[in-house]
């Protein structure tokens, strides 16, 4: 493709990412009876990556060959493209249609196994979910945070947020089987091995999904770390890591002493972590702030290594709190993923290509070009079938 065409195409996808295409509310959903082209089924034991992009589709990448295996189309409009891979490693759940629907897609044949639309149009309640979606360890339940707004005739009333529990077996047209009051501002969620639901908001809460009871499991906004200021936490990417870590980056400052002089404070990057197997928590500084990362993760190979990405891909030695190496990128990438042996880093989000880096040397290994447009803020996930 010549540069001019590439520019035009990239411009289009960027504009789409910025919301330039506008919003249309789909009132009814029609499901395609027979997907036009479904590609091969996934093979047991093989490693794959899924990522979503415009116009509204899920791509399966084969990580043995680092190539595009297939593309499944999803009904409705795109965004945000949060993906969660079910424990069966066959169903991929996607939060989409302008934050208002979840589809479960069987990536073997691209069929739709699950669909729910949150909004209750009959009662004029519009409901969105801001990145908050997780599955129970057995894959039987789907958890979605709901942010409802009652659209009265001449005014809106924002309603309390709540957690909605769905039976994934309810298929198309599923409705919540239980709902529980839940705090506002929850972004990403993950379930522990014990079935507890971790919800990252002002703090990281843990909810009993049977009773709806929740407590602060790991404080962030309300942490009590002497000399530290309250952290800032950006998180829109619920990454399912090979190491079963629920990792959330924070930025903060640490004063030198009780005088609390910001001018001499250390500016610090760190992560909050919940081990999803054990529930153990960590609040760990890993280096000084020199640039912003949208996502980061611990290496599946060596938990002392943390990677972060936005305008560069950076690797930190956690114990030494030191940047080991940073790789320049062809463009910004939002969402990080790593393969299970921790040898490769896969960068997605923004534009329409996944970049691959060697986790040891930090050298670029290549790109996988995706059909369609911008990934925007899609969450990419790596899994073994």
């Amino acid at each position: 493709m010549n540069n001019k065409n590439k520019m035009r195409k990239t411009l289009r996808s960027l504009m789409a990412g910025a919301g330039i295409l506008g919003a249309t509310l789909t009132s009814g959903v029609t499901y395609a009876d027979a997907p036009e082209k479904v590609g091969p089924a996934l093979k047991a034991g093989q490693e794959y990556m899924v990522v979503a992009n415009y116009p509204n589709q899920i791509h399966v990448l084969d990580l043995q060959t680092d190539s595009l295996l297939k593309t499944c189309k999803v009904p409705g409009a795109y965004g945000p493209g949060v993906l969660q891979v079910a424990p069966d490693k066959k169903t991929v759940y996607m939060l989409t249609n302008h934050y208002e629907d979840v589809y479960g897609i069987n990536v073997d044949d691209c069929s739709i196994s699950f669909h729910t639309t949150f909004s209750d149009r009959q009662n004029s309640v519009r409901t969105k979910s801001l990145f908050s979606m997780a599955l129970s360890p057995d894959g039987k339940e789907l958890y979605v945070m709901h942010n409802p707004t009652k659209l009265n005739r001449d005014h809106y009333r924002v309603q309390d947020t709540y957690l909605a529990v769905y039976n994934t077996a309810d298929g198309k047209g599923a409705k919540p089987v239980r709902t529980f009051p839940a705090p506002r501002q929850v972004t990403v969620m993950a379930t522990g091995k014990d079935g507890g639901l971790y919800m990252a908001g002002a703090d990281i809460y843990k909810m009993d999904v049977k009773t709806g009871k929740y407590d602060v499991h790991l404080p962030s906004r309300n942490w009590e770390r002497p000399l530290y200021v309250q952290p800032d936490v950006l998180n829109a990417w619920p990454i399912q890591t090979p190491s079963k870590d629920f990792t959330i980056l924070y930025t903060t400052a640490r004063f030198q002493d009780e005088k609390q002089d910001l001018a001499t404070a250390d500016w610090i990057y760190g992560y909050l972590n919940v081990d999803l197997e054990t529930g153990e928590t960590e609040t760990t500084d890993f280096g000084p702030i020199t640039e912003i990362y949208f996502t980061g993760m611990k290496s599946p190979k060596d938990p002392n290594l943390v990677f972060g990405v936005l305008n560069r891909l950076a690797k930190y030695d956690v114990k030494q709190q030191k940047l080991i190496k940073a790789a320049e990128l062809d463009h910004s990438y939002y969402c990080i993923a790593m393969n299970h042996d921790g040898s490769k880093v896969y960068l997605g989000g923004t534009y329409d290509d996944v970049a691959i880096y060697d986790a040891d040397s930090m050298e670029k290994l290549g790109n996988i070009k995706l059909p369609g447009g911008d990934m925007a803020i899609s969450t990419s996930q790596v899994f073994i079938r």
Partner: protein
Amino acid sequence: MNTIIKSPLALAITAALTTTVLPSYAQEDAVKIVQGKCLACHTEENQAAPQWSRISHQRKTPEGWLMTIGRMQMMHGLQISDDDRATVVKYLADRQGLAPEETSTYRYAMERRLDTMESFEDSQFEEMCARCHSGARVGLQRRPAAEWEHLVHFHLGQWPSTEYQALARDRDWFPIALNEMVPKLSKMFPMDSNSWDQWQSAAKPDFVGQWSFAVHQPGRGDGSGLMTITQQAGDRYSVSMEGTWADGTPLKGSGTAIVYTGFEWRAEIDLGGVITRQVLAASKDGMNLSGRVFEAAHDERGMEFSAAKATTGNHQIVAVYPQNLKAGESTEVTIVGTGLKGRVSLGNGVSVEKVLKRTYNSVTVLAKADANATTSANSVTVGGVNGGQFAVYNKVDSIKVQPAFTIARVGGNGGSTPKVQARFEAEAWGAGADGKPGTEDDIRIGYLPASWHVEPFDEAARADNDVYFAGRMDATSGVFTPGNAGPNPERRMSTNNAGNLKVVASVKDGDQTLQGDGQLIVTVQRWNDAPLP
């Protein structure tokens, strides 16, 4: 998310306060339109003295009302003709507008001064409101607490990510908005005010007649002339402008205008083939008209406009140009105003050699500065009328680039948004009695011709070669034209042609060349271009 977008409708709305057709604007028609179009959702609270839910409990500028109805069209499916919309905007702006003094702090938003750097003492107001849009958009509304509360619910309901963004995710955004901001806003910008009560019963300015005007446009210079206003019907007027730029080029045009709320003048004038908009305010006594005139298609290309009504008993100076004269040199000086009779004085050190041209509304003289004049900023008088300033100088001591900070925006290249230029002027200063530039007693000499160029603002800008990619500075005019829109594969990380530039003005004064600098951020397109930023 459901972003308001730059749709053709949005573009049309931005331009809609003056239309070339003539809607009726009659009150009874407006009431009928509201009843026919708005009561699908709004409730009629009183039929005899028209009062409707939400609508009747807010006060806004014409731009504010236009945005509200435009939002109803874009988000809520309202179907309304442009004429009907114009009739309702006029009715609401008159009936529920802002008094002149209620707009004074925030006129820059209506005047489309989109590079204004706002600054608010109340950091909570800034973080809760002016984080996403201008604070002016808020400050140009008046509501009771219940309506500010509705606004909070609308914001979070329409844009649920509001409470997740930076400067929101670190606090309990929604409770703060409801429990702290609502009471604060209803105190800062209350529905009921003495100013508004008084303005409603006050005698309103009479626009009909002749106005002596002066304009100043960076990169173009000064001009003046007469603007003649005749009434078409009600608050609609025909306008003709007859004047010249300082270089003798005609400054001539005609168009139409509407007056809202008794003092808000909105005109569309074809000025020598270029469609311009006037966003002006009349003074309460009706003797002055001032604000900004800008090109309809390029609102960054604008001029300062000030005018005095050319009527018996009004004696004023509104502008003097050029602004200065070097010791030992001569120049023509034009004084613009009205009722200008009697001797012209340009202050100490300047002699008025000859009156070259004189009308009731302007005087042009040949002025000569004494060879041994020292730098001073003089008051100007014509007969008994004081006003304006004229500087004489023997030496320029420092140069300030104006504006000291501004933005340009990439555009074009097949995209929907044109390039937004930036314009600069070199302002000369004398050091004053202490001989040190940059101190309190500095004397403003005024604008001088300069030679212009840009440099990298910092190391990052140098490394990314911003000077090459971000655009071109015209060396003579100080007009900066930014680069093409879109990712540029030639740039590091295929980034846009954005840049961080130091804008340098070089001014020759005798044997010395002085430099001053400012900062220009070349940034991306403004996609969401509402009538109030």
